[in-house]
């Protein structure tokens, strides 16, 4: 089985609020000084899911694809160190500032170019914009079935058996292959890479593809092809205030608190 994992490199979600800045003129996040970008946490989990299937099915292969700038190669190396076999970086200035649609379109073109792919695993959403669209749109582009927010994936039945997180538990579905799966944090933690694999990953070369390699037009990718327009980006105002509840006894204070929360439509 050949599984593709889509991995995105994002600004560190743990950037301290005081160091997180937005450039109003360009409507962009200013990279925080000294804080390196990281692999989106959900994509690491998707990689873990793919690797477990690889280990359970001899002869399987995992390829990791990322769309991003040069620095995104380190996100690919990270997944290679976990045990993925090959890495592809879709790196072209033309890809910049796209939306979920162009990203999915570009990734799908790469998947088609790889050819023999049986399944695509994505994180349930990228931890920066939190849109959760790319997996679905890849399935659309490929014309494949998609199962989202999986907490468990195994081979079996028609192809894959997937435990999907739903509001009050999970449901088990079966999908034929090829298929797209988006994996959720309920799946579990990604593995810690073993050093021999880190060394092996360091030696691997990451394939780089540009617009032309994918048979795409500069006009249909990146900002040029995007359908979503970003109007304005801003940080939510931060602040706190303390209000002490009146009352002579804890019971009275509790009653006052409940009344207040009701009035503010919090409960």
């Amino acid at each position, binding site marked *: 089985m050949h599984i593709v994992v889509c991995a995105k490199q994002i600004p*560190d979600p*743990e950037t*301290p*609020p*005081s*160091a997180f800045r937005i450039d109003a003129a360009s409507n962009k996040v200013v990279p925080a*000084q*000294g*804080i*390196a970008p*990281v692999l989106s946490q959900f994509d690491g989990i998707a990689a873990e899911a793919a690797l477990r299937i690889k280990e359970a099915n001899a002869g399987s292969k995992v390829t990791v694809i990322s769309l991003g700038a040069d620095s995104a190669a380190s996100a690919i190396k990270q997944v290679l160190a976990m045990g993925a076999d090959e890495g592809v970086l879709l790196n072209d200035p033309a890809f910049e500032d796209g939306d979920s649609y162009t990203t999915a379109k570009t990734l799908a073109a790469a998947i088609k170019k790889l050819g023999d792919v049986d399944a695509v695993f994505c994180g349930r959403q990228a931890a920066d914009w939190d849109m959760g669209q790319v997996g679905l749109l890849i399935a659309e582009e490929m014309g494949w079935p998609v199962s989202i927010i999986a907490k468990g994936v195994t081979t079996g039945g028609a192809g894959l058996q997937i435990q999907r997180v739903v509001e009050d538990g999970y449901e088990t579905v079966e999908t034929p292959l090829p298929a797209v799966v988006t994996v959720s944090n309920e799946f579990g*933690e990604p*593995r*810690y*890479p*073993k*050093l*021999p694999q*880190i*060394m092996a990953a360091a030696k691997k070369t990451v394939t780089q593809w540009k617009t032309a390699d994918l048979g795409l037009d500069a006009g249909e990718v990146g900002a040029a092809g995007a359908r979503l327009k970003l109007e304005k980006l801003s940080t939510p105002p931060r602040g706190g205030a303390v209000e002490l509840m009146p009352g002579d006894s804890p019971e009275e204070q509790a009653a006052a608190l409940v009344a207040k929360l009701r009035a503010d439509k919090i409960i």
Partner: protein
Amino acid sequence: MPDLTAPTSPKNGRVGAWWGPAVGLSGLGFYAATTIPESAGREIYFNVAHPWAVYVFLAALIGLLVYGLVHHIRLWGIGRPTPGMLSEIPHRFRNAMRLGLAQEKVRRDRYAGIMHWCIFSSIVVLTFVTAQVAIEGDTPIKFLHGTYYLIFSFYGDLFGLIGLIGVGMALNRRYFQDFHRIRWDERLEDHVIIVGLGLVLLSGFLVEAARILVSELVQHPDWAPWSFVSFVIAKGLAGFAMEEASVLTLHAWTWWFHIASAFGWLALIVFTRLDHLFFAPVNAFFLRTDSPGRLAKIEDIEQQEVFGVGYVQDFTWKQLFELDACVRCGRCTEVCPANISGQPLSPMHLIQDLKSHLATVGPDIQTHVHQFGDAGREVSPVAMVGDVIKDETLWACRTCGACMQECPVMIEHVPTIVDMRRFLVMNEARIPATAQSALENLESRGHPWRGTALERTTWMEGLGEVPIFDGSQEYLYWVGCSGSLVERNLPITKAVFRLLGESGASFGVLGQEETCNGDPARRLGNEYLYQILAQQLVETFKSKNVQRVITNCPHCFNTFKNEYPQFDGNFEVLHHTEFLSGALKTGKLKATHAVSADVTYHDSCYLGRLNGQYDAPRQIIEMVPGANLLEMQRNFSKGLCCGAGGGNMWQEEIGERRVNHVRSEEAVRTGASQVISNCPFCIQMFEDGVPAVHPEEEGRMRPFDIAELLEESVFGKR
């Protein structure tokens, strides 16, 4: 260089001069002996048929000892080479004398020290006594007569008696006292050794008494009292009014019993922990000569096949050798914070488990290694790391060094434990989730504090101009991740900053450019990550022309001071307590405001035990007017870890209790209102531990860094 032999406190640093009485007594004997005629002496092999049989015993014993040694040497030989073992020979020789022969560590337990000295000196002296008898009897050299003979008799009896006293003390501890540590791994041999020695000594006295009864008491009653113990026994025997023939029979039988039991007892060296007779001084010779705070560097890490030690033959031969030196005394386990808290680690059992693993799989590996090289790795059906030594055992270690400090045979547990952790982390990637998260954070964010909302410059707020280090200042003030990214520690960082400024020191900080120096990665076993971080930082220091560093944190201190030289980073490193106590002494800082409080002081492992700095912090406390220092029961080199060392700051504890609760209890018991430490981890552990053991907020003890205490005294209350 602390050599892990530091005193428990200045007051009881030395166990008194126990050899004094022995010298006094012998002086007396010498004086009296000057009046003795040359003819004094005795018949060697008196009343013994076929005395040559002794040499058969001797040959058998030597054969056994050689066999045992060869067997062991071959087993140790499966280990890797141990670099540097023959450097600094004079220093090593001194160690062998001090720690091996003079048994400095054994004496850290006073009772055991006296007991052990009695037995040890008795065996040494009596071996010489016996050898002299053999020389007199079986060679043409004749010297056992006259004054010398009587002195010889006196010494023989004196040390026989001393030996019996030692045996009595040992029997008392083993059978009549509620003394636990020696029973944690008690075996049949322990009883055999001590009872056997008692029998050897008693039978020796009986032989001599029987001989005196029928010879000296009859012929030279004035010589007899020199063998004062046997003399008394002979007098006692005389009371039974036995026939001379029965006394001679008694003599002959006890003589043979004495000889057989003595050789039998010596043969135990080959089969029991009595082998420490040889191994302890040799292990003292091989004891590391560098700082115990330093972990070995894996050279050419990228070229290794296996990372860390997961197979017994990947230990160095020194590590294998020391397994055999262990005497199961339990001292290490008794002081181990993990063990004290009911967590799954006992350093003694760890060493013993490795020892029996070596004995089980060693011989096989030996053959395989010689036949197939490293393929011999696969030989054992049980995994050393995982089956023999459990993962959670390795993770429970705080690298506090208390075990190494106490071990009377100088076993170094920490490097062995960390070697196996290295295997777990780098080779197997088996690692507790929270520790993994700290390591991942180190990799991607350059600090171990996942989820912090602080920046490396947050602490500077409200301090005015903070000088950035540019090479022109004398000192780099190294704040460290904990000093800048953990809310509780910001006041400590500010306090050190203000005090440095007040002292007039020329210093700067790195601010945003600080990155973790790698200590948590190394302690958690990720040597690869550590090396990357260390190399980077050494480069940064060099490029900025850093010469002198002052640190907040004893872990940073230890890393820069003891470990960065492995990466060609040689800097002069001071912990803030060292700088501040110096500034107080030279009058650059003046502690003028009284801080009226009873305080207790907690020795952090990395400043205290592993780097030998016990005085500077106490001097600061003494110079703060009003502060009254109340020592905890475990202090100085016997101080108990706070629980956070060795990467345990980032792990969930498993076991009955938490180490910081145990230590907080000890601090609270002093009745002090503040517990003072010198380490951001210790402070966090107390912040957490004190409320847990002292739930009422009223009158609860509060943890402070020593810099906070001094800040209040220098600048007044904020």
